């Protein structure tokens, strides 16, 4: 998986450089952004949230419901897409490195263990995700990076915004064997 990433990254970088050198910085942004936006997941929080960035590890801990409060003490509410939607499984895989089923089992386990105050919330669409985050000061969710607006705050992950080529939460082309493997 690391080789693939590196390849893609290289290709994108080369393309960006070529584009930058040929057509100038003004036209370079969309050219650089486009392939990244199509695939990156932007992690969003309420704009009043004091946190500006997380490490992937911290993000994974939050989504895995291991961290349940923000540094300011406010309870963290994780917002996912609805069960059965590809964006839910995708996000769980990207962030938590788990299949959806593994994630559900983990949540059930947490619930039984009693460490879980409240489980993740499910939202039907990206736009609803955006509005949910806008209304809930302690919530955290995600939307495809091309749907981000200024109603929410986009967190840096590992210090990088989704436009960054090295942004960790970038979706890969779906692999059927992987899926089959997941089902297994």
């Amino acid at each position: 998986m690391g080789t693939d990433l590196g390849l893609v990254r290289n290709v994108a970088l080369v393309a960006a450089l070529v584009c930058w050198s040929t057509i100038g910085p003004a036209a370079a942004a969309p050219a650089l952004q486009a392939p990244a936006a199509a695939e990156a997941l932007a992690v969003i929080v309420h704009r009043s949230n004091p946190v500006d960035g997380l490490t992937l590890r911290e993000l994974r801990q939050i989504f895995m419901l291991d961290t349940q409060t923000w540094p300011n003490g406010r309870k963290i509410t994780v917002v996912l897409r609805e069960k059965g939607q590809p964006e839910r499984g995708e996000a769980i895989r990207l962030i938590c490195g788990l299949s959806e089923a593994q994630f559900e089992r983990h949540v059930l386990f947490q619930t039984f263990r009693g460490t879980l105050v409240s489980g993740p919330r499910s939202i039907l669409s990206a736009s609803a995700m955006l509005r949910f985050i806008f209304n809930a000061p302690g919530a955290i969710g995600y939307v495809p990076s091309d749907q981000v607006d200024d109603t929410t705050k986009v967190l840096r992950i590992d210090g990088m915004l989704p436009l960054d080529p090295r942004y960790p939460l970038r979706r890969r082309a779906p692999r059927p064997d992987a899926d089959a493997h997941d089902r297994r």
Partner: protein
Amino acid sequence: MTPAPVSVSRVRGRELSLLAGVVVAVLALGWIVARDVRQSADDASQLYERLSHGLNLIDDLQFNAQEVRRILLYALHTSDANLQLQYAEQSRAAAAQVQTLIDSGAAVMPARTRRYLGVVGQRWQHYLVVRDDVTGLILERSLPEAVALDQSRGTARFNDVRQALADLKASFESDAATQVEYARARADRATWRLTLLVVSALLTAAVGIYLINRRAALEGLLRIEAHKGSILQAVPDPIVSTDAEGRIVELNEAAERTFGFSRADALGTRLEEVIVPERVRAVLTVAFARMPEAPRTVWPRIETIARRLDGTQFPVELAAVTHTVGPDRIWTVHIADMTAWRQAEEQLRRAKEAAEAADRAKSEFLATMSHELRTPLSGVIGIADLLQNARLTASQTDLVRMLRSSASALLGLVSDILDYSRVEAGQMNLIPVSFSIQSLIEDALDPVTEAAARKGLDLGYVIGPEVPALVLADQDRVRQVLLNLLSNAVKFTETGEIAVHVGATAAGAGSALITVRVRDSGSGIPAHLHDQLFQRFTQLQRSPGGPRGGAGLGLAISERLSRLLGGTLSVDSAPGVGSTFTFVFAAGAAPSGESTDPVAGSLAGVRVVALVGPGVVGDQIRSLLARWGTRLRVVVRNSDAPLPAGDEAFDAVVVDGDAWDGGLGALALHELTALGAHLPVVMIRRLRSSPVREFEPAGLVIAKPVRASALHEALCAATGVARPTADLKMPSPPGELFASDSLAVLLVEDNDANRRVVQLMLEDLGLKVDEAADGFQAIERARSRQYDVILMDVQMPGLDGLQAARRIRVEQRVKPPIILALTANVMEGDEAKCREAGMDGYLSKPLRLETLAAVLAPLASQKS
């Protein structure tokens, strides 16, 4: 008079400007009121809009604010994040709506209320913070916290919002009330103005109508005034109007002109002081005071004297009317200047007097003339009369007859003139006497007999049985009229006959109206000339070359005489038909009783056959014979009646020889005489008709016109009937009636011819006469001898008859003589003068023998 047109235009201009001003004011007021009404209506609708908008807005605010909280709380009841999110979003939207309402409300709300809106906005923001927190808590599944938060801070803040909203609403409502109040006040003002406008418009209309009416009335009045004024000015006489105190209030130009004062000076002064002289003021004041109180009473005309400004006075006639104008009584006096009138009156009076004097002079002249003419004429006629009795040759006799007739004609003319002047002067006095109408008519026919015979005219009369035999009237005047009519008839008739018909109608007790109709068969008179007939000195040109003659006085005198006699004279005539003059006079019953013909019925039983013509002569014979009682058979020539048959016996035949001429009568007579062995024949014929040989055996011939006595006598003689001669009044035949010593007569006459005539007449009567040529001689003679009768001419040179008579009366007291005046002065009053002078009577010249005999006979018998 004030010139009317100027004041009219001035008044019109003033009224027009006044009216225009009022109309402009009303229009301006109308504009203001319209603007007000419009404004208030606009205000009201705007106010309504604003208020309803504001109230809606506040309601929306309240509702939406509730919704924000309510919807949010729905999210508590679900665990689905999507639903929770949806509710949260809805709540947020509602909150945004609230905010929008608040923002828009700021534009709508009035300033005072806007403050409250600001409070609402602030509190709403406070609440929204809580709401956002609550939303977050809900979405983050911290439901208890969310509820707790909402219960604690959310409720409080929301209540704040609600309170603020309530305040806002209260403020808005109070503000709205103020605005409504203001709008109502404004509407009230508009209403008042509208009312004012309507009232003023009505007033304007009323004033306009009033002005128009007043204009029409004023113009009508001015027209009437101008008309009346022009009438007033057109009158040439002064007209002055005064009030009840007599102060002049109006007058016309004629008054200014007449009295010489100007209108300006005269107005206000008292009428009496200006034009009434002092001496008649009192009279006029009384006259004024006696005026009846009723309005419009016409003042009777008062003749008085007026004074001009320069003091001259002149006669006037005042006529006044009074009428009441409101409380004032106005006199209008019409003053007629009578100066010219008086002058005309005076002139008229003088002219009348002059005319009367001239007329008197004329009458005097006529009387004098006739007197002067009659005196010599008496002599002429007297001498002619005497000559007729003398032995003369045949030619001399003819000459004397002509002389006599000419003199008579002349005397007739003179008498006519005298009569006329006497009638005109009203000096004709009637002397009624008792007389026989039949004799009168026969006498009247006499003078025209000869003329009629010359022309071959038949004359006849018929007296109706109703006519009394004797009547009482002025015989001379009746005869005069009759003679005139007959002579006219003869004069203007050439062929045919002249018939007199007498009738009578009772007219009250003892009197009758005698109608005498004189009908001729002459040329006739056209109807349009009838009126002229009776005017004096008029002679109609009846036919070209027709007879003329006379003074033209005859019919005029006759007409006046017939009126004097209590009757009329009228004519009925047409050319070619002849004329009928109808003379009516009033007659009294004769005092001496004999009202029937004394010979009536005297020939009863005598059988007479009369052969007559169809004319009046036949009628006369028939009527006479019928009256006398004969058994009469009348055979009218050319009629169908046959001659009497042979076996009839008759005592006499009366034949109209002129009708039965040419052998026809002879033949008839022959037949009749063949019947009776000796049948006496009485023939009647005209004076000059040729003797009819065939009738010679008859022997008895009577001339036309037939006198009743002659016919009666002839019939008596023919039939041997005794005649009652005693009853017939035959005139005494002239002759020596007196013994020569029976009366001592003194004749006093200055005119030799007349004295000679009277002397001869007296001598004819068998009397011896002493003569005196004047008054002095008469007195001398009277002293020397006792006279039984003195005939005294009145007008004599020296001592006239009247003075002589007085003297003789004084001297001869022992055995006073009868003094009779001889005078041609037959004017009224002469007789009185004679009587006053002591005379016993008078004899009118020309003296006639018969008159003289009739007067002297009783004196002689007295003496014997």
